[in-house]
């Protein structure tokens, strides 16, 4: 098994930390992982993206030309990465920031209402975990149990009271993803 993912959105949406938690969960399952962020001006506002690879075998390049799955959380990200999804790959987007929807027909596109749901449930801090839930519903690359372990490892202890809310967000995220 090897899954090559790009996660892209606005700075502050939790793109990098979502990738980190996914990679950490992969590590917990004994898999090979890599996490390669765009660390430039992007990180200082504007768009942010991270390439995450989870694999049974050693990973060659942390930088890729095309992806199995693209998760795009704003319009510029959709415009940039739609073309880089492998044929028969998947594109996941959140409806909130998207005006022009995906056009490719040789890939499967999935929409989520993560931003809307997170706002409704007053769980905006966990927006990225809703999205991660959607991904895991589609591709159970790692178990929710290991994601929770990864969260426990990566979140500072003072935030551990937020762990149940994160789990709830992941499970809810699994419900709100649908193919278009």
């Amino acid at each position, binding site marked *: 098994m090897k899954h090559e993912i790009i996660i892209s959105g606005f700075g502050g949406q939790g793109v990098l930390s979502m990738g*980190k938690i996914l*990679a950490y969960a992969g590590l917990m399952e004994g898999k090979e992982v*890599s996490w390669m*962020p765009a*660390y*430039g001006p992007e990180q200082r506002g504007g768009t942010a993206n991270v390439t995450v690879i989870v694999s049974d075998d050693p990973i*060659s*390049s942390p*930088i890729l*030309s095309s992806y199995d799955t693209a998760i795009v959380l704003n319009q510029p990200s959709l415009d940039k990465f739609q073309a880089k999804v492998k044929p028969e790959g998947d594109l996941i987007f959140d409806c909130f920031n998207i005006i022009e929807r995906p056009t490719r027909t040789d890939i499967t596109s999935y929409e989520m209402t993560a931003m809307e749901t997170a706002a409704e449930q007053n769980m905006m801090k966990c927006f990225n975990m809703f999205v991660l839930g959607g991904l895991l519903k589609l591709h159970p690359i790692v178990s929710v149990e290991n994601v929770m372990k990864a969260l426990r490892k990566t979140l500072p202890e003072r935030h551990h009271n937020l762990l149940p809310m994160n789990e709830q967000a992941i499970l809810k995220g699994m419900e709100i993803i649908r193919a278009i």
Partner: protein
Amino acid sequence: MTNENDILLLKGNEAIAHAAIRCGCDGYFGYPITPQSEVLETLAELKPWETTGMVVVQAESEVASINMLYGGGGTGKKVMTSSSSPGVALMQEGIAYMAGAEVPGLIVNVQRGGPGLGTIQPSQSDYNQATRGGGNGDYNIIVLAPNSVQEMADFVDLSFELAFKYRIPAMILSDGVIGQMMEKVVLPPYKPRRTEEEIGRDCPWASNGIGLKKRGSQCITSLELDPAIMEKRNLHLQEKYRQIQENEVRYQTSQTEDAEYLIVAFGSAARISQKAIEIARARGEKVGLFRPITLWPFPQKEIREYAERVKGILVVEINAGQMVYDVKYCVEGKIPVRQFGRLGGIVPDPDEILNALDELKKQS
């Protein structure tokens, strides 16, 4: 058996910091610069001065850092600094002094694009500076090029070992990709810092007041005004460099047994090239990878041998063509050699490397 707590998901820069503490480093002196600031940040977080006694100083500049290294190394301490390209440019005078005075030490360069302040994005354009000395005079330093977070961790101890074995500065030449990416890393076991007595025993040259037999024997300097003595000293350095070239070449090959074409690449470029080779192999193309691990000493003999076996060589490096001259020197015009790289902080992707490979095939 590796302890579960020793297996972590770390950035390359963070791995350097963890490894430094664990391999008994005595002191770190550095100044923040993207994309390597996590080295100093991680050290500040781990507070090694409370555990191993390792000193961590945020110096006032890169020039100060390298001169602290000169002083610390002169007393036989395992000392290091880290920076990125413009900062390492500032250190060149100090590195030349260390080379001239035969002071060991570790310099980590997490390269970014240049020239000048350039960009904060990854690059490998300091290859020439690193492998040709960089400062004034006839000298070389040992240059190791890690291609993973694991090697970032492993090369810290290796660099110190080589630096002290040969009394020479050693450099880890990394880049923004390896520094910023996170991967699984197994950290090395803890090794205690050397005691003053151990330093006195292992480094009789060290100017630390221990093992002092006669006055003057511990004078460490790169200055010598008598040309006859200075020439001798230079010849001694050259002889040392020859020994290093003979004994310390390190490289790795992958899928070269039946290869018709060879990609030569180091560090992050080697990782991306490996992916390109995976794709090429799936199409039935016989391509292999040669990855120099020591950029100086360069694996000349080995490249020379491949020049007799393959139809052409593609050198992939994230610069405008620097290592390609070392490869061409070894190939001696026997087969076509092409170079491919991106500039200004843009990292090539596997597809671009495949296109360059196709161009090479047309040429040979």
